[in-house]
């Protein structure tokens, strides 16, 4: 295989893998949003109602 293509494909794979975790982290941060009584607020002093 062309060495440049070889390295490009590897770089794309590594970039995708890192991107996967970044997107996951972003999504879970966005999803968390507001807090409800289902979360653990009652366990921390700052979240106590």
């Amino acid at each position, binding site marked *: 295989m062309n060495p440049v293509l070889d390295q490009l494909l590897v770089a794309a794979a*590594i970039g995708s893998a890192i991107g996967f975790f970044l997107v996951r982290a972003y999504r879970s941060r966005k999803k968390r949003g507001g807090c409800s009584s289902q979360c*653990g607020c009652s366990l921390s002093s700052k979240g106590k109602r």
Partner: protein
Amino acid sequence: MSSTAEIADTVRHVAIAGNPNCGKTTLFNALTGMRQRTGNYPGVTVERKIGRFFGSHGEPMLLLDLPGSYSLQVRSLDEAVSRDVLLGRRKDTPRPDVIVAVVDASNLERNLYLVAQLLDLQLPVVLALNMVDMAEQAGIHLDVKGLEEALGIPVVPMIASKGVGLVELKQALSRQPLPMPARKPPIPEAMEREAQALAQELKSAPEVAYSEALLLLTQHEQGLKEQADEATVQKVQAAQERLHKQGIDPLSSLVELRYDWIADLCAQYARKADDSGYQLTLSDRLDGWLTHRVWGWLAFLGAMALMFFCIFTLAEYPMGWIEAGQEWVGDLAKSWIPEGDVQSLVVDGIIAGVGGVVVFLPQILILFFFLGMLEDSGYMARAAFLMDRLMSSVGLHGKSFIPMLSSYACAIPGIMATRTIENRKDRLVTILVAPLMSCSARLPVYILMIALLLPNGSSGVKAGIMLSMYAVGTITAFLMAWLFKKTLLKGETPMLLLELPPYRMPSLKNIIIRMVERAGIFLRRAGTVILALSVILWALLTYPKPADPELPRGEALAQSYAGKMGHAIEPLIRPLGYDWKIGVGLIGSFAARELFVSTMGMIYNLDDEHAEDEDSVKEVMAKETHADGSRVYTPLVCIGLMIFYVLAMQCISTVAVVWRETNSWKWPLFQIAYMTTLAWVGAFLVLQVGRMLGFS
């Protein structure tokens, strides 16, 4: 589901409420066609679940499955979810239009108390009289018409697990308009007057004000302060004082009056055919053995030993097939992709990394088959009963058993299940020790190490070692709980009040559905998280490339980023008998425990000395030696590594859940620190004490 859009175009919002373990989630699954988890023990559902179904005229309805609750006077987080939804207190969920009150027909007397409270909520209620077959078997004659008349609400006899009564329930829910309860459960007159007066002063919406007022009026001081502001607390306490002066105890008189009313209802409409005395059922007789202080423990240990024995014997063939498949795919990739980094990434990174984890699917499925059988049959509640004596001696709440038991599968649902524990400190202790229970992700590590330890050992001995690893995790969890209760989180241990559900024949369909779901979760994880981590780990093991291309690959591996990390932590792990390659495995598996197996697969695939031969990774690891020629994977190192994985946190998802559940970084960081220290000390003691005793 995308709740906002779907909530908007539904005709009716229906909430399912009822006592724990009366079949709410079974009914929810039957109506929606969904597959939410059910179990024959209380506390399976700890958060509300939303689904959709169609009424008898095809109108879309939104269905909420609420966690089980014995009363609206809540004691735990999961019960608070039910109360808040029913009172319309939650911003993310609209107040339901109708409540389906699910009751266990064979245990009406206990189930009807919550129904009486639901009738106070000024909402239409439909009574789903579930498990009528069990009631009949218990010799209870149900007068459905009479009960309907007495309660003033539609009553639908059902067997939700078989779909019996679903059509009638849908018809009752599709009525236009939905009838309000025609009768009110009894209440002392003076108390009703006070509740109405209090309702006028509350800021709640008019439709819930009376219900809120009644709940507050029957609340003890602590509960009041948790729910209301200072001004309201004073008003409620003044009303309670007035009631006291009239000889009415606001906390107990309503409860007593309603239980008398329920007793009358049951005597009239749920008569026992033979009331000559209490007779032992088959469940009772079985319980005599299975909860016995000696036979009970023997049965429990026997069941666990059988499970691990099957994991080793039955999984052997499918594992062989997967390994052969992995090898075939690897060879195919080698023949298709020209030599170079891409080929190495695919073969040594992706196929070795993902395949190394997927190969353990059969064992994990067998584990879930057994757990499903034990849960569905009702045995788990007996196991909780057995454990309670042990758990209370270390200060653990009896309710901690279910979360800890769930953690054998995965710590994440286990930690979420701690929401059933009322006391904050007890809940925290359980969260802190739950990840010490051996989860299914540790299975691949144990199996690999046991195979290295006993290459020709019998399945019985291997199962024994596996059982002892589970026992080490469980005993350490108890010891740590005791320590936390004595130091950080001091407090009294409350008594366990546990309802033992009747034994039921496990539903093979349910168990298979759960196994398929677990397989899906496992493979999805292998195809996403493990795949992405394998690519990153491969890159860390491959780059930077050595300046001298002729350098042996083993040397190149040592100079890679991962190799350097492994060498960096080597001084820390050398006292445990580990080399830098195991160090790389430990670092790699911090994200997920099963990655240890993948990482070792990659390391030995990439290593020049071993790449040419036909041996499997297991065999290569068995031959691995230190620079002085001594074996790396000695029996003590293998046992030490297993102990390390029993005790170490090594799971980023669990860290995230602990953070979410405790709403703080303090506890997850503390947990990582104490578990890693424990793991290091455990592995160190195994090696050093083992050597002192003359083992290698």
